[in-house]
């Protein structure tokens, strides 16, 4: 059914980085939630205004006297019993911000969560730096990730096209794909590292500008949390698009590097998305 030829889309570095990165990010997220659970409140500024957190995940007694898990945010109180604040662990209700299935390790164990987090960060950080340098230096990579003039102009049309869940399978990424990867690669991922470093007291002494950029240690902690969930959102959308735009083709391209071009939704002469 699908004709079109195979092209080499992803180089070896990209493919290895992609999968190592996936493992690192899963470990970083789950151990990060473990660390968050040690003090499940977020603040803005230099320090913690304990009686007025920007966000808090905790457990309280409901009107009927039964414990309930809640999330407090911007003056609202949301009942999250069973998932956030109060969840089942070994069949028993346990007061903890994120449930044991979402944290690494499962039980409350801050010291081990920190070891996992920093070990994964030591693999993730240097690899990210190398990959960003490679993307900036290699002309092929630059072309692959930076939208062409035509792609910038076609952006609204590309967005409309995607919104109708229609996908082209060109050799090149379209403008929307390129912008998304640019935002994640050069935006979210470095911001995760930098907001993480801003929480380190030694890094604050070494690079005090970090505190100025992110508005203080507690702001950096809150941003670290927000960016982490922005990455989760990216992950979900990325996964859905991979699944519905030809999962075999996409997976093959990220494992062997080969990607089949030629669209089954739009004729080849249609160049609206450039």
């Amino acid at each position: 059914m699908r004709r079109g030829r195979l092209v080499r889309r992803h180089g070896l570095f990209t493919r290895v980085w992609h999968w190592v990165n996936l493992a690192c990010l899963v470990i970083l997220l789950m151990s990060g939630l473990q660390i968050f659970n040690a003090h499940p409140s977020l603040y803005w500024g230099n320090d913690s205004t304990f009686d007025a957190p920007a966000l808090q995940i905790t457990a309280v007694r409901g009107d009927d006297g039964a414990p309930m898990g809640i999330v407090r945010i911007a003056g609202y109180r949301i009942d999250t019993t069973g998932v956030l604040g109060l969840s089942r662990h070994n069949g028993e209700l346990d007061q903890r911000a994120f449930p044991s299935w979402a944290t690494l390790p499962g039980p409350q164990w801050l010291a081990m969560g920190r070891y996992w987090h920093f070990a994964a960060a030591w693999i993730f950080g240097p690899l990210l730096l190398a990959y960003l340098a490679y993307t900036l230096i290699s002309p092929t990579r630059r072309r692959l990730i930076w939208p062409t003039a035509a792609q910038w102009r076609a952006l609204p049309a590309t967005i409309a096209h995607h919104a109708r869940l229609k996908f082209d399978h060109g050799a090149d990424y379209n403008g929307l794909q390129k912008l998304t990867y640019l935002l994640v690669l050069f935006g979210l991922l470095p911001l995760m590292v930098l907001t993480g470093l801003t929480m380190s007291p030694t890094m604050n002494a070494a690079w005090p500008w970090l505190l100025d950029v992110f508005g203080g240690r507690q702001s950096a902690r809150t941003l670290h949390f927000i960016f982490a969930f922005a990455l989760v959102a990216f992950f979900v959308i990325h996964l859905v698009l991979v699944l519905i735009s030809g999962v075999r083709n996409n997976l093959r391209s990220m494992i062997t590097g080969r990607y089949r071009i030629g669209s089954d939704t739009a004729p080849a002469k249609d160049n609206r998305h450039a």
Partner: protein
Amino acid sequence: MRDAKLILPDPKRRRLITGLGALGASAALTGCDSLSRNDRFQTWLGATDRLTRAAQRLVSSRESLAREFSERDIAPTMRANGSTNPSNANYKRHVANDFADWRLRIDGLAREPADLSIDDLKAMPARTQITRHDCVEGWSCIAKWTGAVLGDVLDRVRPTSAARFVVFHCADNIYGGPVKYYESIDMVEAYHPQTLLAYGLNDDRLPVANGAPLRLRAERQLGYKMAKYVMRLELVDSFATIQGGNGGYWEDRGYEWWAGI
């Protein structure tokens, strides 16, 4: 230097981990939790502690200062954590006596070991700094600390060239347990200009809840390094034979010795 086997949870937590398998959680998750208990894996994870220390020492100079804040940044109350009111008889006697015969013992690898009273420490040049206290749990609190610069105090006892660490022995049995709190820092942090033996908090005497009569301020480290209720400084070349051998109460319970992050 570190005994990786000690990166273990307490028995109750261990039972919880064992229970996780029974819960039938996903295979990957169970795999990670059993990895967390594996000795060799813990040794490998422990290496990241030394890597982080080496990297942070590389990017920060000996003198690079923690940020100091202004009066209006001071929090209404400095949150007290860990021990807040040591209950052992010896400490209670010092409190009742207003620390009049309390002496800070400084010994170990020192040419002139000394016993200093609070007045002796107050007679030394004082430093006052408004700094942020960062707990390993994630919260921060800003307060104004006054004390003697640790480097000056150490100079008085003339450490030998073999001295590599300062060990802080404390008065409190944390959580009423059998052992006394202790901590250690190396000579680089000990001689940092903001590292204080603090006797004052927010222009007042250091309260019992925050470590009276004397606590450590090591502003480039996390809160658990900053021992409260300090009774004795011991200069050592290794802390392997002190308590669990990892250089601190929390270090003996799995936390990193390097608490710069």
